Protein backbone atom coordinates (compact mmCIF):
# COMPACT_ATOMS: atom_id res chain seq x y z
CA UNK A 1 0.00 0.00 0.00
CA UNK A 2 1.26 3.49 -0.86
CA UNK A 3 2.67 5.67 1.90
CA UNK A 4 1.33 8.75 0.18
CA UNK A 5 -1.35 10.51 2.19
CA UNK A 6 -4.58 9.22 0.72
CA UNK A 7 -7.13 11.57 -0.76
CA UNK A 8 -9.68 10.99 1.98
CA UNK A 9 -7.11 11.97 4.60
CA UNK A 10 -6.14 15.01 2.57
CA UNK A 11 -9.79 16.10 2.71
CA UNK A 12 -9.84 15.71 6.49
CA UNK A 13 -6.62 17.67 6.80
CA UNK A 14 -8.04 20.47 4.65
CA UNK A 15 -11.21 20.56 6.73
CA UNK A 16 -9.32 20.21 10.01
CA UNK A 17 -11.71 17.45 11.05
CA UNK A 18 -9.38 15.13 12.89
CA UNK A 19 -8.51 14.93 16.57
CA UNK A 20 -5.80 17.54 17.27
CA UNK A 21 -2.92 15.08 17.68
CA UNK A 22 -3.89 13.13 14.57
CA UNK A 23 -4.30 16.33 12.61
CA UNK A 24 -0.86 17.58 13.60
CA UNK A 25 0.72 14.24 12.70
CA UNK A 26 -1.13 14.10 9.37
CA UNK A 27 -0.09 17.65 8.50
CA UNK A 28 3.53 16.89 9.37
CA UNK A 29 3.45 13.74 7.28
CA UNK A 30 1.93 15.55 4.33
CA UNK A 31 4.53 18.30 4.56
CA UNK A 32 7.29 15.70 4.40
CA UNK A 33 5.93 14.07 1.26
CA UNK A 34 7.09 15.19 -2.17
CA UNK A 35 4.36 17.47 -3.50
CA UNK A 36 2.26 17.02 -0.37
CA UNK A 37 1.62 20.68 0.31
CA UNK A 38 1.03 21.31 -3.37
CA UNK A 39 -1.74 18.70 -3.29
CA UNK A 40 -3.31 20.50 -0.36
CA UNK A 41 -3.07 23.84 -2.16
CA UNK A 42 -4.59 22.31 -5.29
CA UNK A 43 -7.48 20.95 -3.28
CA UNK A 44 -8.12 24.33 -1.69
CA UNK A 45 -8.03 25.94 -5.12
CA UNK A 46 -10.57 23.38 -6.31
CA UNK A 47 -12.79 24.33 -3.36
CA UNK A 48 -12.81 27.91 -4.59
CA UNK A 49 -13.46 26.91 -8.18
CA UNK A 50 -16.38 24.71 -7.16
CA UNK A 51 -17.97 27.40 -5.04
CA UNK A 52 -17.57 29.89 -7.88
CA UNK A 53 -19.06 27.55 -10.44
CA UNK A 54 -21.84 26.25 -8.20
CA UNK A 55 -22.62 29.06 -5.75
CA UNK A 56 -24.04 28.01 -2.36
CA UNK A 57 -27.32 29.85 -2.91
CA UNK A 58 -27.83 28.07 -6.21
CA UNK A 59 -27.07 24.64 -4.75
CA UNK A 60 -29.26 25.30 -1.72
CA UNK A 61 -32.13 26.25 -4.03
CA UNK A 62 -31.72 23.10 -6.10
CA UNK A 63 -31.52 20.91 -2.98
CA UNK A 64 -34.67 22.58 -1.66
CA UNK A 65 -36.42 22.00 -4.99
CA UNK A 66 -35.49 18.30 -4.99
CA UNK A 67 -36.63 17.96 -1.43
CA UNK A 68 -39.95 19.59 -2.22
CA UNK A 69 -40.47 17.04 -4.98
CA UNK A 70 -39.75 14.21 -2.55
CA UNK A 71 -42.01 15.68 0.12
CA UNK A 72 -44.79 16.30 -2.39
CA UNK A 73 -44.62 12.66 -3.43
CA UNK A 74 -44.80 11.57 0.19
CA UNK A 75 -47.68 13.92 0.79
CA UNK A 76 -49.61 12.53 -2.18
CA UNK A 77 -49.03 9.03 -0.91
CA UNK A 78 -50.00 9.94 2.64
CA UNK A 79 -53.20 11.64 1.48
CA UNK A 80 -54.22 8.70 -0.63
CA UNK A 81 -53.48 6.21 2.13
CA UNK A 82 -55.08 8.24 4.91
CA UNK A 83 -58.36 8.18 3.01
CA UNK A 84 -58.30 4.44 2.69
CA UNK A 85 -56.41 3.21 5.70
CA UNK A 86 -57.06 5.16 8.84
CA UNK A 87 -60.86 4.96 8.74
CA UNK A 88 -60.51 1.29 7.94
CA UNK A 89 -58.75 0.74 11.23
CA UNK A 90 -61.57 2.36 13.11
CA UNK A 91 -64.61 1.16 11.22
CA UNK A 92 -63.96 -2.48 10.46
CA UNK A 93 -63.92 -4.59 7.34
CA UNK A 94 -67.31 -3.89 5.64
CA UNK A 95 -66.89 -0.12 5.80
CA UNK A 96 -63.23 -0.53 4.96
CA UNK A 97 -64.13 -2.33 1.77
CA UNK A 98 -66.29 0.62 0.72
CA UNK A 99 -63.60 3.09 1.60
CA UNK A 100 -61.06 1.01 -0.24
CA UNK A 101 -63.21 1.32 -3.34
CA UNK A 102 -63.41 5.08 -2.81
CA UNK A 103 -59.66 5.20 -2.52
CA UNK A 104 -59.30 3.13 -5.65
CA UNK A 105 -61.35 5.63 -7.61
CA UNK A 106 -59.72 8.66 -6.02
CA UNK A 107 -56.33 7.33 -7.05
CA UNK A 108 -57.68 6.91 -10.53
CA UNK A 109 -58.38 10.65 -10.60
CA UNK A 110 -54.71 11.45 -10.20
CA UNK A 111 -52.93 12.32 -13.44
CA UNK A 112 -51.75 9.05 -14.92
CA UNK A 113 -48.24 10.29 -15.61
CA UNK A 114 -47.43 11.37 -12.10
CA UNK A 115 -48.02 8.20 -10.17
CA UNK A 116 -45.26 5.94 -11.54
CA UNK A 117 -42.77 8.79 -11.23
CA UNK A 118 -43.78 9.35 -7.63
CA UNK A 119 -43.32 5.70 -6.87
CA UNK A 120 -39.94 5.63 -8.57
CA UNK A 121 -38.82 8.72 -6.69
CA UNK A 122 -39.87 7.28 -3.37
CA UNK A 123 -38.02 4.08 -4.11
CA UNK A 124 -34.81 5.82 -5.06
CA UNK A 125 -34.72 8.21 -2.14
CA UNK A 126 -34.95 5.54 0.51
CA UNK A 127 -31.64 5.07 2.23
CA UNK A 128 -30.20 1.71 1.38
CA UNK A 129 -29.25 -0.52 4.22
CA UNK A 130 -31.43 1.13 6.85
CA UNK A 131 -34.61 -0.81 6.28
CA UNK A 132 -35.95 -4.06 7.72
CA UNK A 133 -35.41 -6.94 5.34
CA UNK A 134 -37.12 -10.06 4.21
CA UNK A 135 -34.94 -13.04 3.30
CA UNK A 136 -36.04 -16.03 1.26
CA UNK A 137 -34.19 -19.31 0.96
CA UNK A 138 -35.25 -22.14 -1.29
CA UNK A 139 -34.94 -25.52 0.36
CA UNK A 140 -32.76 -27.85 -1.65
CA UNK A 141 -31.10 -31.17 -0.98
CA UNK A 142 -27.88 -29.34 -0.21
CA UNK A 143 -27.44 -25.90 1.26
CA UNK A 144 -30.54 -23.65 1.32
CA UNK A 145 -30.38 -21.38 -1.71
CA UNK A 146 -30.81 -17.64 -1.05
CA UNK A 147 -33.18 -16.01 -3.53
CA UNK A 148 -32.68 -12.42 -4.59
CA UNK A 149 -35.36 -10.10 -5.91
CA UNK A 150 -36.60 -11.23 -9.36
CA UNK A 151 -35.18 -14.74 -8.87
CA UNK A 152 -36.86 -17.52 -10.83
CA UNK A 153 -39.02 -19.96 -8.92
CA UNK A 154 -41.32 -22.84 -9.80
CA UNK A 155 -44.53 -24.25 -8.44
CA UNK A 156 -43.63 -26.74 -5.73
CA UNK A 157 -40.53 -24.84 -4.60
CA UNK A 158 -40.35 -24.87 -0.81
CA UNK A 159 -39.32 -21.53 0.62
CA UNK A 160 -38.11 -20.59 4.04
CA UNK A 161 -38.96 -16.99 4.86
CA UNK A 162 -36.95 -15.03 7.41
CA UNK A 163 -36.93 -11.42 8.47
CA UNK A 164 -34.49 -8.93 9.91
CA UNK A 165 -36.52 -6.42 11.90
CA UNK A 166 -33.74 -3.79 12.13
CA UNK A 167 -35.12 -2.67 15.47
CA UNK A 168 -38.80 -2.42 14.48
CA UNK A 169 -40.85 -4.11 17.19
CA UNK A 170 -43.95 -4.97 15.13
CA UNK A 171 -44.46 -6.41 11.69
CA UNK A 172 -46.17 -8.80 9.34
CA UNK A 173 -45.20 -10.85 6.31
CA UNK A 174 -47.60 -11.53 3.47
CA UNK A 175 -47.51 -12.28 -0.22
CA UNK A 176 -49.61 -11.57 -3.29
CA UNK A 177 -49.51 -13.69 -6.41
CA UNK A 178 -50.29 -13.41 -10.09
CA UNK A 179 -53.73 -14.84 -9.49
CA UNK A 180 -54.67 -12.04 -7.10
CA UNK A 181 -54.50 -14.13 -3.94
CA UNK A 182 -53.12 -12.76 -0.69
CA UNK A 183 -51.39 -15.08 1.78
CA UNK A 184 -50.51 -14.16 5.35
CA UNK A 185 -47.23 -15.73 6.46
CA UNK A 186 -46.62 -13.90 9.73
CA UNK A 187 -48.30 -13.89 12.15
CA UNK A 188 -49.87 -17.26 11.52
CA UNK A 189 -53.41 -15.91 11.91
CA UNK A 190 -55.19 -12.58 11.80
CA UNK A 191 -55.40 -12.61 15.57
CA UNK A 192 -51.74 -13.52 16.08
CA UNK A 193 -49.13 -11.29 17.68
CA UNK A 194 -47.31 -8.79 15.47
CA UNK A 195 -44.29 -8.74 17.76
CA UNK A 196 -40.95 -9.12 15.98
CA UNK A 197 -37.77 -10.54 17.46
CA UNK A 198 -34.22 -9.28 16.89
CA UNK A 199 -31.65 -10.78 14.58
CA UNK A 200 -32.54 -12.99 11.64
CA UNK A 201 -35.75 -14.82 12.47
CA UNK A 202 -37.01 -17.70 10.37
CA UNK A 203 -40.76 -18.16 10.24
CA UNK A 204 -41.93 -21.29 11.96
CA UNK A 205 -43.11 -23.05 8.81
CA UNK A 206 -41.88 -23.16 5.23
CA UNK A 207 -44.08 -22.14 2.31
CA UNK A 208 -44.65 -24.14 -0.84
CA UNK A 209 -45.28 -22.16 -4.01
CA UNK A 210 -48.48 -23.11 -5.79
CA UNK A 211 -49.25 -22.92 -9.50
CA UNK A 212 -50.40 -19.29 -9.54
CA UNK A 213 -48.92 -17.72 -12.67
CA UNK A 214 -46.36 -14.97 -13.26
CA UNK A 215 -45.00 -14.14 -9.83
CA UNK A 216 -45.25 -14.27 -6.06
CA UNK A 217 -44.37 -11.02 -4.30
CA UNK A 218 -43.57 -11.05 -0.61
CA UNK A 219 -44.01 -7.98 1.60
CA UNK A 220 -42.50 -7.26 4.98
CA UNK A 221 -44.41 -4.47 6.73
CA UNK A 222 -43.02 -3.08 9.97
CA UNK A 223 -43.91 -0.43 12.49
CA UNK A 224 -42.88 1.01 15.81
CA UNK A 225 -46.43 0.45 17.07
CA UNK A 226 -49.04 -2.31 16.74
CA UNK A 227 -51.23 -1.91 13.66
CA UNK A 228 -54.44 -3.34 12.21
CA UNK A 229 -53.63 -6.57 10.39
CA UNK A 230 -57.07 -6.73 8.77
CA UNK A 231 -56.54 -3.32 7.22
CA UNK A 232 -53.14 -4.44 5.95
CA UNK A 233 -54.70 -7.50 4.33
CA UNK A 234 -57.32 -5.26 2.73
CA UNK A 235 -54.58 -3.06 1.28
CA UNK A 236 -52.86 -6.16 -0.08
CA UNK A 237 -56.08 -7.47 -1.62
CA UNK A 238 -56.64 -4.13 -3.27
CA UNK A 239 -53.14 -4.15 -4.73
CA UNK A 240 -53.56 -7.74 -5.88
CA UNK A 241 -56.52 -6.82 -8.08
CA UNK A 242 -54.14 -5.64 -10.78
CA UNK A 243 -51.24 -7.98 -11.60
CA UNK A 244 -49.17 -5.05 -12.84
CA UNK A 245 -49.62 -3.15 -9.57
CA UNK A 246 -49.17 -6.29 -7.53
CA UNK A 247 -45.83 -6.89 -9.19
CA UNK A 248 -44.40 -3.40 -8.80
CA UNK A 249 -46.44 -0.84 -6.86
CA UNK A 250 -46.14 -0.33 -3.11
CA UNK A 251 -48.94 -1.17 -0.73
CA UNK A 252 -51.02 1.86 0.18
CA UNK A 253 -50.09 2.21 3.83
CA UNK A 254 -49.88 5.04 6.31
CA UNK A 255 -46.46 6.63 6.70
CA UNK A 256 -46.05 5.06 10.11
CA UNK A 257 -45.67 1.68 8.43
CA UNK A 258 -42.64 0.85 6.34
CA UNK A 259 -42.58 -1.85 3.74
CA UNK A 260 -40.11 -3.81 1.69
CA UNK A 261 -40.82 -6.45 -0.89
CA UNK A 262 -39.16 -9.22 -2.80
CA UNK A 263 -40.64 -10.70 -5.96
CA UNK A 264 -40.07 -14.19 -7.31
CA UNK A 265 -40.73 -14.66 -11.00
CA UNK A 266 -42.61 -17.85 -11.68
CA UNK A 267 -41.60 -20.34 -14.32
CA UNK A 268 -44.08 -23.04 -15.32
Amino acid sequence: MSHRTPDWMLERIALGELPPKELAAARARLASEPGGLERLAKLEADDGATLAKLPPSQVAAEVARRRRVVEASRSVEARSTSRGWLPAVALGAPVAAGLALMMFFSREELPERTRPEEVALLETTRTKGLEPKLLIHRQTRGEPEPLADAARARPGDVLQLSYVSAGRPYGAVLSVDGRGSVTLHYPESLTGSLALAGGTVSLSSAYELDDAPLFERFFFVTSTEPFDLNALMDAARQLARSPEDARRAPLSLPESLSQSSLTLEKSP
Partner: protein
Amino acid sequence: MAIDVEACYRRYGPMVLRRCRFLLRDEERAVDAMHDVFVQLLDHQEALTQTAPSSLLHRMATNVCLNRMRSERRRPADADEELLVRIASLEDLEARTGASAVLDRLFGREQVSTRTIAVLHLVDGMTYEEVAKEVGLSVSGVRKRLRTLRSHLQELEAA
Protein backbone atom coordinates in the same frame (compact mmCIF):
# COMPACT_ATOMS: atom_id res chain seq x y z
CA MET B 1 -29.80 18.84 14.41
CA ALA B 2 -31.05 21.45 11.92
CA ILE B 3 -28.99 21.75 8.77
CA ASP B 4 -28.21 25.03 7.04
CA VAL B 5 -27.70 23.66 3.54
CA GLU B 6 -25.98 26.74 2.22
CA ALA B 7 -23.44 26.81 5.03
CA CYS B 8 -23.00 23.06 4.95
CA TYR B 9 -22.42 23.07 1.21
CA ARG B 10 -19.98 25.95 1.48
CA ARG B 11 -17.87 23.91 3.88
CA TYR B 12 -18.36 20.36 2.58
CA GLY B 13 -19.79 20.68 -0.92
CA PRO B 14 -16.47 20.71 -2.78
CA MET B 15 -15.35 17.60 -0.89
CA VAL B 16 -18.63 15.83 -1.69
CA LEU B 17 -18.38 16.82 -5.34
CA ARG B 18 -14.79 15.54 -5.57
CA ARG B 19 -15.91 12.26 -4.06
CA CYS B 20 -18.76 11.92 -6.55
CA ARG B 21 -16.47 12.95 -9.40
CA PHE B 22 -13.90 10.34 -8.36
CA LEU B 23 -16.48 7.55 -8.24
CA LEU B 24 -18.68 8.50 -11.19
CA ARG B 25 -16.00 9.97 -13.47
CA ASP B 26 -18.40 12.35 -15.08
CA GLU B 27 -18.85 15.97 -14.05
CA GLU B 28 -22.54 16.21 -14.82
CA ARG B 29 -23.43 12.99 -13.03
CA ALA B 30 -21.21 13.98 -10.12
CA VAL B 31 -22.95 17.35 -9.70
CA ASP B 32 -26.32 15.62 -9.84
CA ALA B 33 -25.27 13.06 -7.22
CA MET B 34 -23.79 15.78 -5.03
CA HIS B 35 -27.19 17.51 -4.86
CA ASP B 36 -28.79 14.22 -3.86
CA VAL B 37 -26.28 13.75 -1.06
CA PHE B 38 -27.45 17.01 0.49
CA VAL B 39 -31.09 16.02 0.00
CA GLN B 40 -30.33 12.84 1.93
CA LEU B 41 -28.49 14.81 4.58
CA LEU B 42 -31.62 16.93 5.09
CA ASP B 43 -33.75 13.81 5.15
CA HIS B 44 -31.80 12.56 8.14
CA GLN B 45 -31.13 15.83 9.90
CA GLU B 46 -33.29 14.91 12.88
CA ALA B 47 -31.03 11.97 13.66
CA LEU B 48 -27.74 13.78 13.11
CA THR B 49 -25.59 14.47 16.10
CA GLN B 50 -22.18 14.88 14.53
CA THR B 51 -20.53 18.25 14.69
CA ALA B 52 -17.84 17.34 12.15
CA PRO B 53 -19.74 15.47 9.46
CA SER B 54 -17.04 15.11 6.79
CA SER B 55 -16.84 11.39 7.48
CA LEU B 56 -20.62 11.00 7.27
CA LEU B 57 -20.85 12.98 4.03
CA HIS B 58 -17.98 10.99 2.53
CA ARG B 59 -19.88 7.76 3.24
CA MET B 60 -23.19 9.17 2.04
CA ALA B 61 -21.61 10.31 -1.20
CA THR B 62 -20.04 6.88 -1.64
CA ASN B 63 -23.38 5.21 -1.10
CA VAL B 64 -25.29 7.53 -3.44
CA CYS B 65 -22.71 6.99 -6.18
CA LEU B 66 -22.66 3.20 -5.73
CA ASN B 67 -26.42 3.11 -6.02
CA ARG B 68 -26.23 5.11 -9.22
CA MET B 69 -23.52 2.90 -10.65
CA ARG B 70 -25.59 -0.14 -9.84
CA SER B 71 -28.68 1.19 -11.56
CA GLU B 72 -26.86 2.63 -14.57
CA ARG B 73 -24.85 -0.51 -15.36
CA ARG B 74 -22.28 1.44 -17.35
CA ARG B 75 -19.43 -0.26 -19.08
CA PRO B 76 -16.28 0.33 -16.98
CA ALA B 77 -13.56 2.34 -18.67
CA ASP B 78 -10.58 0.78 -16.86
CA ALA B 79 -9.61 -1.73 -14.20
CA ASP B 80 -10.20 0.66 -11.31
CA GLU B 81 -13.66 1.52 -12.53
CA GLU B 82 -14.37 -2.14 -13.21
CA LEU B 83 -13.69 -2.92 -9.55
CA LEU B 84 -16.03 -0.13 -8.49
CA VAL B 85 -18.74 -1.23 -10.87
CA ARG B 86 -18.44 -4.80 -9.66
CA ILE B 87 -18.70 -3.74 -6.04
CA ALA B 88 -21.62 -1.46 -6.88
CA SER B 89 -23.37 -4.26 -8.75
CA LEU B 90 -23.18 -6.75 -5.93
CA GLU B 91 -26.59 -7.70 -4.74
CA ASP B 92 -27.59 -7.16 -1.19
CA LEU B 93 -24.86 -9.15 0.48
CA GLU B 94 -26.25 -8.63 3.93
CA ALA B 95 -29.57 -10.12 2.91
CA ARG B 96 -27.96 -12.98 1.06
CA THR B 97 -25.56 -13.99 3.74
CA GLY B 98 -27.44 -13.16 6.91
CA ALA B 99 -24.39 -11.23 8.07
CA SER B 100 -26.67 -8.34 8.94
CA ALA B 101 -28.34 -10.33 11.66
CA VAL B 102 -25.06 -11.11 13.35
CA LEU B 103 -23.96 -7.52 13.19
CA ASP B 104 -27.27 -6.14 14.31
CA ARG B 105 -27.10 -8.40 17.33
CA LEU B 106 -23.52 -7.52 18.08
CA PHE B 107 -23.80 -3.80 17.70
CA GLY B 108 -27.49 -3.10 18.05
CA ARG B 109 -27.29 -0.56 15.25
CA GLU B 110 -28.17 0.06 11.67
CA GLN B 111 -25.63 -1.11 9.22
CA VAL B 112 -23.23 0.58 6.88
CA SER B 113 -23.42 -1.15 3.51
CA THR B 114 -20.76 -3.77 2.91
CA ARG B 115 -20.33 -2.22 -0.51
CA THR B 116 -19.39 1.10 1.10
CA ILE B 117 -16.94 -0.66 3.40
CA ALA B 118 -15.44 -2.42 0.40
CA VAL B 119 -14.88 0.86 -1.41
CA LEU B 120 -13.29 2.45 1.65
CA HIS B 121 -10.84 -0.42 1.99
CA LEU B 122 -10.21 -1.55 -1.57
CA VAL B 123 -10.50 1.69 -3.48
CA ASP B 124 -9.66 4.38 -0.93
CA GLY B 125 -6.94 2.28 0.65
CA MET B 126 -8.11 2.62 4.23
CA THR B 127 -6.72 0.00 6.59
CA TYR B 128 -9.09 -2.27 8.51
CA GLU B 129 -8.54 -0.05 11.52
CA GLU B 130 -9.31 3.12 9.60
CA VAL B 131 -12.45 1.63 8.06
CA ALA B 132 -13.58 0.40 11.45
CA LYS B 133 -13.17 3.86 12.92
CA GLU B 134 -14.90 5.43 9.93
CA VAL B 135 -18.02 3.27 10.05
CA GLY B 136 -18.22 2.60 13.77
CA LEU B 137 -17.63 -1.14 13.66
CA SER B 138 -14.99 -3.26 15.28
CA VAL B 139 -11.95 -4.27 13.24
CA SER B 140 -13.11 -7.88 13.39
CA GLY B 141 -16.53 -6.77 12.17
CA VAL B 142 -15.00 -5.05 9.17
CA ARG B 143 -12.78 -8.04 8.49
CA LYS B 144 -15.77 -10.33 8.63
CA ARG B 145 -17.74 -8.21 6.18
CA LEU B 146 -14.87 -8.15 3.73
CA ARG B 147 -14.34 -11.87 4.09
CA THR B 148 -17.94 -12.34 3.02
CA LEU B 149 -17.44 -10.01 0.13
CA ARG B 150 -14.32 -11.83 -1.03
CA SER B 151 -16.31 -14.96 -1.60
CA HIS B 152 -18.29 -12.95 -4.13
CA LEU B 153 -15.33 -11.20 -5.67
CA GLN B 154 -12.58 -13.76 -5.82
CA GLU B 155 -9.94 -11.50 -7.23
CA LEU B 156 -10.14 -9.24 -4.20
CA GLU B 157 -8.03 -11.75 -2.31
CA ALA B 158 -5.05 -10.14 -3.93
CA ALA B 159 -6.09 -6.60 -3.12
